[in-house]
Structures are given as C-alpha cells and as structure tokens.
C-alpha cells in the first residue's frame, strides 16, 4: 500500500479502479451479441457433428490403421494444458509474491475453469460408446465392476475432476470481495444486485473478513499448487505408461507440465490482448505484465526444447530400433511437417522473447502467442499420431489421412464452447481482480490520475 504514488488520494484511485473494472460488467452491446451469435452457431454445428458421430459410429472420424487416438485426445491434452496457467498464475505466483500477476490472474483463472470444462468433454467424445461413460466412474453398481485403478485413464478421471473442483473453488474464493464490489455498484433492488449479493456471501469488507479471506486464499493457493504439477503429470502418464515408442519415457511429467504452462501463458496472452483493447484496460494489463509473461514463456519454452532434445538423444542412445525408428520418422516421415511445426513454433519462435523490445511489444507478443498455441497443439498431435502410426510392427504402419469434417466441427465447437463461457464470464464476473489491484494500483493509472 505504501507504493501509492504522489499525492493522489487513495479514494480517488479506488473509485477509478472500481469504475474501470466494473465497467466490463455493463450490459453487452451489439458487438458482444454478434460474437455470441457466431460462437453459438459454431457450437451448434459442433453439437450436430457430435450427435452425428454418436449415431453413426466413430468411423466418421479420421482414425486409421493403428492411429486409434488422434484429434480428440490432442484437443484434450491441449485444453488441459491451457488450463494450467490459470492456477499457476493465481496460486504459484501468489505464493512467490509476484505482484505482476494481479491484473491477469482473474482472466487466467476463468480461462482455467472453462478450459477444464472443455478438456473434460474430449475423453467422452472420443469414447467408442459414449453412452457407457459412467463405467469409468467408481461407484458401487449392479454390474459389480469397479474401474481398474491401474489404468492411467482412471487416474485421468480423478486428476481432471479434482483439478476442476479446486480451480473453480479457487476462482470463486478470490471473487468474493469483487462480487461484493459489483453488488455495491449494481442498482439497488435489481436482480443483478440480488445475484451478486447472494454470490458474495454477505461480504462487508471488515478487517476480520479480510483476515480470514487472506488466510483462506493462501491456504487454497498452497492446496492448488501441487495440483498444477500433478494434473498434467497424470495426463502425461496417459502416454508415458504406455509402451509405445515416443510415449514411453520418464521425462514426460516435467515435460508436459512445462509445456502446459507454456501453452497456458500463451493462451492468456491471446485472450488478454483483445480484451484489454475492448474494455480499455490498458492501464491494468500493461507492458510490465506482458514482459513478465514473456519471461515465463522463455523459461518454459527452454524446458520444452530441452525435453525435445533429450527425447531425441535418448532414442539414439537407447540403441532400440523402435525408439530410433520413431524419432527419425518424427522429423522425416509422413508427418515431418507436423514435427517441424512443433519444433519451430515452440523452440525457435519464442527465442524472440529474449529481446526486451519484443517482450514489451504487445503486438509481437500476441503474434508469438498464436504461434505457440499452434505449436503446442501440434506437439500433442505429433506425440499421439506420429508415435502411433509408426510403432513396433512395420506391417501395421499406416498413413493417417488427417481429420474429417466431423473432427473439425467438434474441435471448432470446443473453441466455441470455451469462448461462450468466456464471453458470459467477462460480462458476469469482474475479469480483473478489483481487490488485488487496489492493493497495488498499476503505475500507469496512478500517473494518469496525477
């Protein structure tokens, strides 16, 4: 609090913050409705594709020969990865007292919850018999069958549902003071006010409440932190526990966690840049924030690149013809292009972030983030599809001809599903943390007010 600059009265700053941030909750305009219409149309098509797929059979997808997992599992891992930065930024950086997180953590937390909700759909969409999905859940049943806890897919069920529970609780917990602010800003007697009143759980902003809130928040942050590591580790074991060359590797857990944070931060940038523009939040989501996120990208990109190199090295060093065959195929086989997209987008492009100028250029960071999003999607695609189509038996090597319109439709639908929640979320919930920003108002804002 001591950092508030000059002689600008605190109350004025706070008022300004309240006004700036809660403005995002104003009734949506035509642009929002137009976007929502597009999003719903795409989502509708995605649902149509899913129903068509369920009725007809998974044959309407591009699965081929030994490639029994493809786009859906790629999407699953991609979305779980996206979901990682939220908790990382809100929990881990909170524990590390990285104050730059304050302006982006809410958005990234929302992103986390919505991304998990999206990710969770894909293991179901990819099931051959989606109508029997409950076989995967452990509950006493007349079939007298319990899931096999040896299977990484069961670990997945638990990891993802736990992650969803914690991250949504964490999101809600951090929202309470802000919801109270929104309540106070809303017109007395309106429905909006009543909803916010209920959601804010009667928050009054007393010292005692703040003390408990801060304790609780710290506790949840500590609780959520290991999950960031565990969830994606478990997801990575979906692969590492298999014996497929290209999957079966002990490096997968750290490799996937770093990759998840990498892709998550990139996705945060991708989402925040337009949001910042539309809602006039330039003062809050300023260059410092991007600079710091870029540094995270540099770090995680380096880890991911290191993992790539280690994989190739181990394949060579193992002497196993299977490992060697797979990794040679990765850069020279049918999917050489996907392999090189992965390497260039994830290892080469982020090198630009070593430059301070690039890090502080919002346009540059936006472009880089798009590259990373694409690169990380292809990373999962390469790991899954390329490894599967070139494993042990040469006779079963087969060409995967790429996804069909059904898979494109469902993938597009998943983005629409995510964006739908996001569009609703930014209109219902303060997308920048009012209370944390007040703790340390961003310098540009203070300068302006002065």
């Amino acid at each position, binding site marked *: 609090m001591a950092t508030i600059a000059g002689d600008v009265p605190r109350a004025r700053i706070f008022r300004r913050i309240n006004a700036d941030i809660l403005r995002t909750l104003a009734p949506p305009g035509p642009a929002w409705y137009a976007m929502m219409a597009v999003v719903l149309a795409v989502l509708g098509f995605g649902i149509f594709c899913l129903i068509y797929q369920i009725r007809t059979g998974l*044959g309407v997808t591009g699965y081929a020969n030994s490639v029994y997992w493809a786009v859906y599992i790629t999407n699953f891992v991609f979305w779980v990865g996206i979901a990682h930065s939220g908790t990382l930024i809100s929990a881990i950086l909170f524990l590390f007292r990285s104050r730059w997180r304050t302006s982006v953590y809410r958005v990234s937390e929302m992103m986390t919850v919505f991304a998990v909700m999206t990710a969770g759909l894909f293991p179901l969409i990819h*099931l051959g*018999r989606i109508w029997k999905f409950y076989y995967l859940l452990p509950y006493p049943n007349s079939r007298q069958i319990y*899931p*096999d806890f040896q299977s990484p*897919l069961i670990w997945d069920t638990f990891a993802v549902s736990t992650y969803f529970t914690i991250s949504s609780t964490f999101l809600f917990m951090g929202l309470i003071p802000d919801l109270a602010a929104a309540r106070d800003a809303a017109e007395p007697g309106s429905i909006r006010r009543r909803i916010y009143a209920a959601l804010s759980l009667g928050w009054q902003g007393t010292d005692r409440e703040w003390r408990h809130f801060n304790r609780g928040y710290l506790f949840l942050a500590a609780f959520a932190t290991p999950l960031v590591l565990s969830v994606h580790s478990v997801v990575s074991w979906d692969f590492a526990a298999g*014996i497929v060359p290209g999957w079966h590797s002990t490096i997968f857990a750290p490799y996937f966690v770093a990759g998840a944070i990498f892709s998550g931060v990139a996705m945060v940038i991708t989402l925040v840049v337009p949001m910042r523009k539309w809602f006039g939040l330039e003062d809050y989501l300023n260059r410092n924030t991007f600079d710091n996120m870029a540094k995270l990208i540099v770090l995680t990109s380096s880890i991911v690149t290191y993992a790539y190199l280690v994989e190739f090295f181990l394949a060579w060093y193992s002497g196993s013809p299977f490992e060697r065959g797979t990794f040679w195929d990765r850069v020279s086989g049918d999917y050489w292009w996907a392999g090189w997209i992965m390497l260039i987008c994830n290892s080469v492009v982020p090198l630009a972030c070593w430059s301070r100028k690039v890090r502080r250029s919002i346009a540059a960071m936006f472009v880089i983030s798009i590259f990373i999003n694409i690169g990380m999607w292809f990373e999962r695609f390469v790991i899954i599809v390329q490894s599967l189509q070139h494993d042990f*038996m040469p*006779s079963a090597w087969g060409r995967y001809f790429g996804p069909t319109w059904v898979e494109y439709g469902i993938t597009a639908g998943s983005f629409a599903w995510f964006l739908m929640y996001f569009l609703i979320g930014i209109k219902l919930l303060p997308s920048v943390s009012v209370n944390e920003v007040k703790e340390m108002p961003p310098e540009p804002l203070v300068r302006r007010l002065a």
Partner: protein
Amino acid sequence: MERRDFLKIAGVAGAGGAAFGCSPKATERLIPYLVPEEEIVPGVATWFATTTDGPEALGVRVKVREGRPVFLEGNPLHPLSGGAVSALAQASLQQLYDPDRIKGPLVRSGPERFRRTTWDEGLRLFAERLDSARGGGVWFLGGHLTGSLDELVDRWLAALGSGNRVRYEPFGYEAALAANRLVFGREEMPLYDIGRAGFVISFGADFLETWLAPTFFARGFTAMHAFRNGRMGKYVHVEPRMSMGAANADEWIAPRPGTEMLVALGMAHALAGAGGGTAGVSLGAYAPEATAERTGVPAETVRRLAREFADRGPGLALGGGVANAHRNATATWVAANVLNRLGGAEGRTLRFGPTFRTPAADGARRVAELVDRMRAGEVRVLVVHDANPVFALPPAAGFAEALGNVPFKVGLSTFYDETAAHADLLLPASHWLESWGDAEPLDGVRGLRQPVLPPLHDTRPVGDVLLATARAAGAADLAEEDFGAFLRGRWSGSPARGPLAGQADAGWFEALARGGSFGDPGALVVGPGRSWSDAGAGSAAAAGGADPTNGANAGRPAGPGNRDRAAASTANGNGAGDPETAPAAGGGATDAGGAAGAAVTASPGPVRFEPAAFDGDEDGLHLMAVPSIGLHDGRGANAPWMQELPDPVTKAVWGSWIEIHPDTARRLGVRGGDLLEVASPHGRVKASAFLYPGIRPDTVAMPIGQGHTEYGRYAKRRGANPVALLPAELDAASGGRVWFATRVTLSRASADDGWDHRLIEMQGSPHQHSRGIALAYSAAEAAEAEAAPAESESVRLLERITADADEDSPYRWGMTIDLAKCVGCSACVTACYAENNIPAVGPDDCVKGRELSWLRIERYWAEPDEVEETGEFSVRWLPMLCQHCGQAPCEPVCPVYAAYHNPEGLNAQIYNRCVGTRYCANNCPYKVRKFNFFDHSNRDPVLHAHPMPETLQLLYNPSVTVRSKGVMEKCTFCVQRIREAKIAAKGQGRAVRDGEVVTACQAACPTEAIVFGNLREPQARVTREAQAGRGYSVLASLNTRSAITYLADVVATDRPLRGAAGHGERGPSHGPMTEERERRGGKRGAETGAEDAPAAPGAH
C-alpha cells in the same frame, strides 16, 4: 378391500405382467423352431460331410447351427482336402448367403430387363424351345464337371439328340495333357507326388495357389519342404514374377518371358549330356551355355539346378500356370516331362496311378468352335451352366457378339453374371450346399454332395432342371424324380457302375456320413507319412470315438486315416514303387496302368523349343494376367470375404492393380498408386501401379478376377479385367488358351469412369526394418539351432509363458506357428472370418486400415541392403494374431477391465464392458486389436447401408457374439471352441485332451503350420513344438510373454541367413551363431536411422 385380497390381486397381476414380459416372441427370434426337428439341438452344431463345387472339389464338413451352415472344415477322410479347406472354398459359404443371387426364375422382357416368373412357366418355356431346336441346335456350355451331373448332362443332350457339349474352364490343362501324350503316351494328368520329392522345380505352376489341387499340393509341399530332423527338400520356382508359390521357393529364377523350356532342357542336357534325349527330344542343342543368352539364366545356375535335381532325392518338374500359358506352352511341358523322365521322377514323384480329372483337353478349342457355330446361326438354344465366358474370354474372341445370333439363351447360373445378363431365360441354380451331387477330382476319389439346407430362394438344382426338361422331351431313361434320386441310383442302384453297387441302404448312408467313397487311399499317401503330426496320434482315441456325422473337430490331425494310408502305401507298392528301387533316369515308364514304354519313342510332334512369341509394342512390357488365391478366375469376386482377403503377394484388397518393377517404374516416372492405362493390341484397361521388386523389369502382372460389369454389388465396377488385353489365341500344339502372350504399354490415366480403381494395401511398410519379426535360417543353421534345444531360450521362454495362468488351472492355452510350413495361402484368415463373425468393412474403410481381421498374414520383403548384398529378393510370411501375452500391455491400460487375463492364460476381451477408449489397441505392440468404427456387423460393406442384407446375417455363427459399434475386438483363440471341448470333457469327468480344441485357423491350415493346445501338458504337440530350437517370440524384448511361439522359417540354401533380417530383437539366441548375429546387429543398429527412410512408394 381386505389386505389379503389386495395381495392376491397384486400377485396375479404381477405374474401376468411377468408372463407377458416373457412372451415367446423374443425366444422365437433366437431359435426359429417352435417344434424343433429331431436331430437339431439348439446350441449344438450338426456336421455334414459334403463336397464343394469348383475345380478343386474339396471334401468338407459343414457345420450347421440351427439349420444354417456357418463354417466349413476339411473332411479329414477326403484325400485331396486332408482335413483342410482353402480360402476360396470357405468363401463359397458366403456365396450361399450372397444378397445378389438370382432369387427365382427370370424371363427376358426387354433389353436389360427381366420379368420374374414361376418355375412351371420357366421350365415349360425351356422345354418348348428345346423341343423346337431338337438335334444339333441345342448346345450346352458348362464348367468342369465330374461325377453324376457330368453323366446327366451327356444323357440329357443325348435325349435331345445333340452331342454339342462344351466343357470349359478358364484355366485349362491342355498343354499338360498334350505334353503327357507326347512324352508318356497318356493324355492324362498323373499324380504329382510332391510330398515324396526331394527337389521340386516348377516352371510357372502355381501349385500352392490355383493349379490343379492346391490344397492337396500344399500338404505335399509341407511334407517335402518342412524342416524336420535336420532335413528338408528344396523347391525352385521358375517364373518371371515372384508369385505366392515362388515366394515359398528356396530359389526363384526369373528367365526371360517365354523361355522356360530352354531352362528345363538345359537342365536335362546337364543331366544326360549332349547325346542324351528321350521321347524323340534330342538335347544336343540345349547346353546351358548355349541357351543362357536367350533365357537370361546363367549356365552356372542351370547346371547347379540339374545337379540338385539328381542329387536331392527324387526330383519333380512341373509346368503350367499362366506364366507358362504362352504361345509355346506345350514345349515347356514337354521339356519339363523330359526332365522328369531323365531325372527319374517318372514312377516315383510322377505316377500314372490314379490320375486327375482335369477339364477337357479340347475345352478351349470347343469354345472357339461354339463361337463359330453361333456366328453361323447354327446354335438355336444355348444352355450355360457354371461358366462365365463373356467375362473370362478375351473380347477379341467375340463370344458376346456371337451370342446375339443365338435365338434362345438359357442361364443356369446362381449369379447374375456377365453371361447371365445376355440370357433370355434364367433358371437359377441352387448353391452346392443346397444341392445333391458328387465329384471325382481324382480317379477313385468320389466325393458326395448333400444338401444341408433347403434352398434359401426359389432356385432349383441344375440336375432337377435337366431331369424335368428331359422328361418333357420324353426321355425314357431319365425318369428319376429329381437329381437326388438320380445320384443315389447311380451310386448304388445300377450294379455295374456305382461304387456302392449291391450294397444296401447302410452303404449309402455310410458314404454320406463319410462324404463319399475315396477308393484305395494307399495310392494317395502324401510323402513319407506326416511324421511331424504324429503328436496328434495321442488324440486319435478321442477322435475315433466321435460320431462321424457329429464329430465336431475330432480326429483332424493325423488320425488313423493317415497311418492306414502310410501302411497301405508301403504294403501295396504298386507301380509307384519305392524310391529306392525306382528305375534309373531315362528308364522305361512303369506306371500303374502298365502302359509301358511305348511313349518313349513318341515324337514330340509340332512342338518346337523356341522362346514364345509376344505380340504388341516391341518396347512394351510383357503382361502376365495372374489368378490369385482369393479371386481365382473371378468366381469369388462377389464374396466380401474374398474381396477383403489381402492378396498374398501385394496385400491389396477390393480392387486390382498392375505390378511393376521399381526400376521400370522409375524409368517411366510412375509412382506406387498412380492410375495407369494399360494398352495392348487387343484392348485397354485402367489399373493402379503397385511397385513390386519381385517381378522382372520387362514384365508386368495384373490379377484376374476383378473388373466385373455385372455379378453383384460387391464385385461390380471395381478394378479391371486384364483378360480384355489378351489375344483370343490358342497354343497351336495343344489348343490351350494363351494367357501370357502380349506386351503392353503404360500411360497415365484419370479415374473418370466411375469405377473404383484404388490401390488399397493392407500392409504398411513392406520391410522388417531389422526388427527381427519374421526370422529365417538356412537349413544348416536350423539344424544347429535344433540340435541343442534342451537349455535353449525357447524352453526358458516357454516356462515363463506356461506360468502365466492361475496356479490351479490345468490349462495354459498356447500356439505355435511354424513359418517353415506357412505358405501364405490365407485360408486361416477366411476361416477366422467365418468362425468369428468378422464383418467385412468395405473398401472405404480398408483405405484407412480399419479392416477387422483378427488374423492377418504379414508379408515382409527382404531389406533393400540385403537384396543388394546377396542379389536375392525374398518374401517371408508371418501370421499375426493376438499373442495372448502373459504380460499383456493391453490389460493394465483398460480402465474398465474389458481387456483382462483369464485364469487359463487367455487374454480376454469383454465386449459389453468395453467403452471404446482404444488405449489397449494403442498399447498393443502387435497391433492385433481391432475397433468397430461402425456397426460393421450390420452394415453393408460397400453400400454402407444399415442393416446389412438379411441373408448375410444368416451366416453369423451363433456361438460367437456379434460386436456392435464402439467396442474393441480381437482374436480369442476361438474361446467358444475351448468352451465346447471343456463342456464335453467335463461331462465325461476328465480334462480336455490334446487335439480336442482346434482353432478355426488351425482347422483350415492345409500345411498344419498352426498348432494349438495346452502348454501345461508336457506331451501336448504344442508344447513339444514350442521347445524346438527354432522357436522365438515376436518382439520378445518387450517381455510380453507371448503365448504364440513362432518357429523360424527354414530355407534350403547354403547362404547363411543368420536369422534373416533381424538383429538383437529376437527371443532365443542359438549357440555359436549369436556372436555373428551380434556383430551384424551392431552394424545394422547403427544404420537404423537411415533404414527407416520411407520404403517403396505406395508402401503406406
């Protein structure tokens, strides 16, 4: 209301509701017998012995469940099937249920249009026309018939005052018969006793695929070539293309097209010297050095082959096959016969004891005559039965046009094929499973055919139609009510003729139960007894006790039959003679019939030993049109099983292709899968390129059997018919049809004709990439490996595998597959489809590799560097199915226990638990798990319509679950057969005995390469085979503890193979060779990166 009343009413209502709930409707759908027939016990199969149709006429046993035939197994008593069944024969079961059969009599009502009619009406019309054409105007064109129907056709024609019978098969044996007449003085097909030979050289005869009696020969081939007690025979194949048969040869010689006879004569010259000669052939001019230039085969090689022919025990030379059906086919056969005579084959491996009933020697000539007569308008009524000349004859023969001159054409066809489409009246014949009949493929081997179900459609057996029309024509001697009566009369009624003459009903029923009367079995013994199958003798007791009609799987291996035969053979020692005492080379022929040496002086007549002429572009490529094991001459084309059976050579399905050598393709700028137009002077067709290193660069090959314009939904508008490229010529010396006689040119084409021209390959990489999957040893190495099996890896491996079942389980099921016996014929694949209700997925899904076959034959070509090093191209087969691993990678990853390990060591798949995560399939290193991407079991494979045609659904085996969409499936080791055997054993209070469980693939295998049994029984055949020194597990380094032990292939070669194409990735290592392999493996390993580069284009 009183409480009690309430309870009463509630009770009655509840019971009533329950009763309604269990209305008999549901039951009715399961078992369609309200009052079951006496011999039918729901759930228990009835087996009937019968005989297939087609040229091979195999004795089979039909498994009938609830009135429907669902599976064919070879009749172990039948000398030609020997208990095995070919893929094509198995597929004829599917033809029974084909939705495109003609379902009732049709009469033409306009161009391209037919009107349904009644049998009375149809027969009346037929009889009227016959009556008006009485005499020379009636012609009967049919396929190769033997037995009673053959006689009936002759008598029917005689009754109509006509002798115009044309017997025609596309693949005839005219050249062989002519050559046998010229050299041996007998226009007959002798018994080629491959099993007894030590050295077989085939000049183009694909005796493991389509030539003469492939199932029979496959057994003989195993007896001769399988590796046992450190010994094996050698097989050399001479043909410009490496066919399936050639791929099984120890050596493949590819001479210039049309020059095989010079190679054979060169060998004869080397055997007998320049002054040698026999049967009017003097060998002076044919020294290997003199002919090397013309044949392209080094003199050195020819001399070595001749030495081996003489030294390796009785030799045998065969001619024939399409590779040899060129303009000088007879010369090749004469040359082969000269070699047989000089090499001492005659009377030993080539015997005129019982002879094969081949299609008529004048078949092709008679067809040409028929065309002339039709053109001349002399044919008034043409009856076509079991022949499709419009498809099978080159358009240049003018058959289709000539048909236009025939006023009345009657089709007695089961299918609406290209010839039937020209008919004026179609009286559909019943399928052979719906008909009485008999067949005599070999003298004295008379198979009986009995109907095992009433006709599915409004069809009648051909014999009935002929008898009815003969009656109408007033034939007094054809008074039998139906063909069944005619048949029975012929078998037991007339004392002079029938094999059961004078016997009462009992004899007839016994013949029916046995599947026929097979004469003196001693003459037919295959090789020196099948000693490798003696292990089955232990089970003979179990087998012997079984009821012959309901004997299930009993008694198939070895059995008493074989032993008796072996004994009889030693005892009677007829003309066949003992190899030891057989006459020396060049000696007089002493055959059973005693038609002695007259032939020796016979002149070879018009035969000239010159390379055959080829027409077409001088710079063109020689075109081979080849029959395949699945499509044969095209008769299997409408069976989805045959369409989806990967061709053994190319592994392509649902279409045709043109095989081009990669060098030629490079020269022409062609890549694998490119659509080409193939043009000859006689026609042009389109086909996709398949790059095949196993063909001469100056030759191309196309499969016969596709390119149908009619026939049915599965065959129609698919691939190309290479017959359109062929000349309508006959071999001058024999009158045989010419198949290999023209050169073609290739150019790019576009697929704009609406036909399916795709090249759909079911194999990924054609190479093993040094992964040691299909191993091979040279004979010396194999002997070394087998010498010290006691402490070998395979024994240790076996101990571990055997442990992979519950401790108190008496069983751990396992299998051995002897690659030295496997010939790649794929009969097992089709048998598996039939037994396990595996649906065909259709071409569109095959493109994506989604075929559901539980068992596939992998085909691996020699590594490119190995070919470069040795100059020898080779092919290895590997039947790949679920390995039922002790530590199965698929099991722990399944979240719902759908994949689990059962107490008997089986890796089981529970369909109704499966949710379809497909993780198991990803984690299966053998890639044998298959996923139901659609409701394939109820979906038409080509039209993609639901539900699938109702008749095809009747084919499903009720013992096996029909899988729905979204679940994983895979080989179960025929768990239903295991259950059946266990239930039977339990009823008798004992354990299952060795040999009682026979898996479907094992039952079909003509070479007994597959052995199944209980690994916990030390004396079981499977256990003993698994201990062989050649045993190994595929991908053993993964420690999956596969329950299938492969026995490495053995090649009769002096070249060390060092386990071939493999390095460290193998299970057992054998003694002193290990070091050598390690060295090589190290070298290979370093190159792994490079060798993994994409192989042949179109390989994926």
